[in-house]
């Protein structure tokens, strides 16, 4: 009861948080046909700065961290990415009127991680002063890459079987490389390396840190406009995508919360870390995943998986899952 009350209260507060406000604002603007548009160059720059900020910060703090602690959470992050994809494929195989490869691609996108949702939860953690291990941002690729690779590999095995029924070979390293070369992971890893190897404190304090909140607010606005404008595409595909996109983030987050709970009791993974792991799992990739999937599973229909992730998955992850897992952590730990 208390938990439900807390969650609803927090949901209400969340609706007063500017992060969500900008997201909803973006949707409303798009719905009202506003001509306001954030230029593409600005969008790209904002994503770059956000990920650099997360990466540099992580890198600077990892220096004094005990990386052995990271082993189990990193392993769990991988497991979560993989399990989400397998569950997703299974679920879609049960649903009617779903093209096989569209199911694979959607499952892959929901196994991967959303840079925008991740930045949003980082701001909330800061606002609430919830502590977590410095290396948690480094878990991102451990969940993101296996999910994308697995979805693409399985889809290609399936497609090759369809065609020929004989031996199959998929270029796994090619897909990993493609992920790492994507702009989101590149920026995050560059930031980590710079934070670890150079002394970026002053440039971090004078630039990346102060701009973080503001740039996030604008990214939320863009995600809101994008969410709205993709809803039409989503409508044209089976409605099951919307249903999956609404419920699965919560389920994925709960799964991650469970594994995080185990890590908490075995290696002392912090409650803050568990929240972040859960939100990563709940999020679905919106920036770097789609192009990787588009080339990895070209016959899958992008309207299905991008629509599901951007129009439903990301809003649910930000509006519902962030408050949910914070309250859950407060109730449980």
């Amino acid at each position, binding site marked *: 009861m208390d938990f439900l009350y807390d969650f609803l209260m927090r949901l209400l507060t969340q609706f007063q948080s500017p992060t969500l406000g900008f997201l909803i604002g973006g949707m409303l603007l798009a719905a009202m046909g506003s001509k306001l*548009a*954030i*230029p*593409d160059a*600005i*969008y*790209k720059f904002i994503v770059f700065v956000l990920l650099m900020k997360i990466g540099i910060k992580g890198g600077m703090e990892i220096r004094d961290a005990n990386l052995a602690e990271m082993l189990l959470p990193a392993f769990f992050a991988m497991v979560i990415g993989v399990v989400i994809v397998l569950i997703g494929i299974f679920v879609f195989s049960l649903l009617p009127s779903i093209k096989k490869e569209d199911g694979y691609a959607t499952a892959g996108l929901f196994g991967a991680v959303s840079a925008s949702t991740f930045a949003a939860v980082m701001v909330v953690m800061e606002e609430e002063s919830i502590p977590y291990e410095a290396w948690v941002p480094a878990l991102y690729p451990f969940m993101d890459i296996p999910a994308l690779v697995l979805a693409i590999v399985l889809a290609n095995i399936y497609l090759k079987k369809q065609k020929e029924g004989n031996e199959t070979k998929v270029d796994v390293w090619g897909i990993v490389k493609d992920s790492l070369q994507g702009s989101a992971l590149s920026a995050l890893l560059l930031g980590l390396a710079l934070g670890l190897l150079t002394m970026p404190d002053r440039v971090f304090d004078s630039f990346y840190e102060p701009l973080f909140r503001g740039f996030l607010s604008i990214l939320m606005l*863009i*995600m809101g406009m*994008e969410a709205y404008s993709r809803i039409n*595409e989503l409508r044209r595909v089976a409605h099951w995508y919307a249903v999956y996109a609404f419920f699965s983030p919560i389920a994925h987050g709960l799964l991650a919360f469970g594994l995080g709970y185990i890590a908490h009791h075995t290696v002392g993974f912090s409650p803050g870390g568990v929240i972040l792991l859960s939100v990563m799992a709940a999020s679905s990739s*919106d*920036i770097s995943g*789609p*192009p990787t999937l*588009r*080339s990895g599973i*070209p*016959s899958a229909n*992008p*309207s299905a998986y*991008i629509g599901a992730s*951007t129009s439903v998955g990301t809003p649910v992850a930000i509006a519902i899952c962030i408050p949910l897992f914070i309250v859950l952590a407060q109730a449980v730990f």
Partner: protein
Amino acid sequence: MTLHVAEKVVIITEKIIAKGVCNIIESCGATGYTLFAAGGKGSRNNRSTAQRSSVVDDFANVQIEIIVNNYSMAEEIMEKVRQTYFKNYSGITYLEDIKILRPEKF
């Protein structure tokens, strides 16, 4: 000024496969090509011009023009691009007659 008849192959397709299309063009022996950012609407979808921030930018269109002074090379490029990509990616291709100055350049 003597002008020589030549062909211009035009390909309009998704930006995400532009690199692959250019590789095909080069492998067919064309001496060059020109690329334009484009938006458009076809049988599959609406593609925005690269003006507003497109969260998934790689799905904008690109128009590629290739001048060849040799009809069979034009045919080869069109055919290969169509076979390699147009089942899974949106795209169209067509041909125009043009007149060039220096046939040895193409």
